[in-house]
């Protein structure tokens, strides 16, 4: 009997609404950590795919979370809630609904750009297997340059060395691949909760 073939990949799915959001929520310091990490995920996406605020707002509309992220100002204020942002100090208090929205948007966009993310990770695997540095591949070199520039432009100074920044960028890249799956939003949310008690670089 010929099996029915299911060639669908993650791209044919849409991330379902989060299911882990009923868990106990972190306290203020832990929520700061979550703000930082969501902002870093979006920073990684921006660096790899060059997407801008327009794409994020379209994602918000597609996901029906315009109430949380209705315009560029609202998006900016949410991202400025990251306490590591230069000069912001977490001025906007990020509530849990807004965090949900940003998680959904991040994974929606990761899903939209899964091909690019996968290409970058595959390239990283090949270079590493050949003992070559990531900068030697254009897709990774561009990504690392842009990530470093955006990070240094937006975040507080003297937080991470260049090597640390590269390690962080590659870790975020690999994580993005798993966030681009149908289970991505849930994976990200649970990871955020788990990491909320740990220190972020």
């Amino acid at each position, binding site marked *: 009997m010929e099996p029915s073939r299911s060639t669908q990949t993650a791209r044919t799915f849409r991330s379902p609404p989060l299911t882990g959001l009923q868990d*106990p929520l972190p306290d203020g310091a832990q929520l700061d950590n979550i703000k930082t990490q969501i902002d870093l995920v979006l920073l990684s996406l921006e660096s790899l795919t060059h997407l801008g605020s327009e794409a994020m707002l379209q994602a918000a509309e597609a996901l029906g979370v315009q109430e949380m992220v209705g315009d560029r100002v609202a998006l900016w204020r949410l991202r400025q809630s990251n306490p590591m942002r230069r000069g912001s100090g977490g001025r906007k208090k990020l509530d849990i609904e807004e965090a949900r929205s940003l998680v959904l948007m991040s994974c929606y966009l990761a899903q939209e750009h899964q091909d690019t993310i996968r290409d970058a990770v595959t390239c990283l695997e090949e270079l*590493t297997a050949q003992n070559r540095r990531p900068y030697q591949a254009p897709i990774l070199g561009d990504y690392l340059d842009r990530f470093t520039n955006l990070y240094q432009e937006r975040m507080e100074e003297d937080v991470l060395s260049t090597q640390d920044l590269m390690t962080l960028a590659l870790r975020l890249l690999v994580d993005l*691949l798993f966030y681009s799956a149908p289970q991505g939003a849930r994976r990200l949310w*649970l990871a955020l909760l788990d990491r909320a008690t740990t220190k972020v670089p």
Partner: protein
Amino acid sequence: MPEVSRLYTPPTCTLEITAQTSALSRWTRQPVVKSVQFLLSFEGSPEKSREPLEIRGDHTQLESLHEAVQAYIQTVLALPLEQSSLELDPPDVSPPHGEMFPATQGVSLRPQGLLQHELRVGALAFDLPIISLKTTQLFDLATALDAYAAELDTLPLVAASPRWQQAPPTWMRSAAAVVFLVGISAASVPLLQGLNQDLEVETARQETPPLADESYPASVAATPTSPLRVPSLEPPPPLLPSVPLPTPALPDPLPQPVLEAPPAALPLPPPVPTAAKQTDLPAPLVALPPELDLQPAAPATFERSEPFAGNRSSTAPSASDPAAMRSPESALLDVIPQVAEARQFFVERWQVPTELDQTIQYTLILNQNGSLQGIQPWGSTAEIFLDRTPMPLLNQPFVSPLSQPTPAHLRLVLGADGSVQTYMEPR
């Protein structure tokens, strides 16, 4: 016996599922399968042999693999971003996180740097006890397993015969309940003509039992232990508000199922219940109370319950409210008062989302202090709408403390018509 086959083909691996279609499929909307077998093959390493790596096994082993992969990915993602063990180059020694990656029935994974993962499959492949996966291979494996698990929602599993005798699977319990309900409906018809007694109403606006939830197999007609005959399926005439119902003879109680606790690292169990868990969890319909609500259009009439322990939201009844001092109406299966309290909680808060067009169900696990220990959505629809239910937070005050030391398992049934039903799950 016809076979069902599914093939999942992400770029770097192929997962082939074969199973036999049960004759019971004729009674269900979705096929019922048994004797699940799988063949998982990874593409061969270019620098080595081109021969694919293959793993074969049965349903239980496939579930073990899926659970291990899911848990591993979540654990790795939750590692701090500066985690040193996830650097590019594989460490020379084993990473110091071995205890973080326990084996699931002999299947386990460990990181070998950021981009390599060591999959130990144990007895699944004696000649290949350890398989090295790249990150993209791990991603593809997880994608295939998730796709399989998602489809399993519509392909209810039937356990192999030895296990059949130990723990009847979900569809079988559902079948027994359907037979029971059909019998009840038929038996009610003649009784409606001559009897007129008050019924105890136990749910709010319950029109129909939650048979339509697509996460469960639909009705199955024949169950050997059922003493009830199945008459014609003509709908009964309109029922009077007060009609007595007989207490039917139910089949023998089912064995107590086991609900596995979620991994400690995860606040909630995976969103898509695995087949093994589905088999282990109690079926929803068997536990339906034997009495029926014969006031289909009646709105919720519950009074406020006595104040629950601990802090409540601002909408909670106050102690000064006279209505708050009365207990909510109880049902026959309100074995413990917390069942009615939970019902009261949701009756006051349940707002049907516009998009919801079917009943959704959850298993609520109560801590001894009355707070929620865990939530298990039943089916993908319940999972999707979880964040739009008034579900209380875990470990926050919910109902009064239990008198029993062990956690209690409640079933919550939220209807698209606004109805709310709770009852104890048989354990």
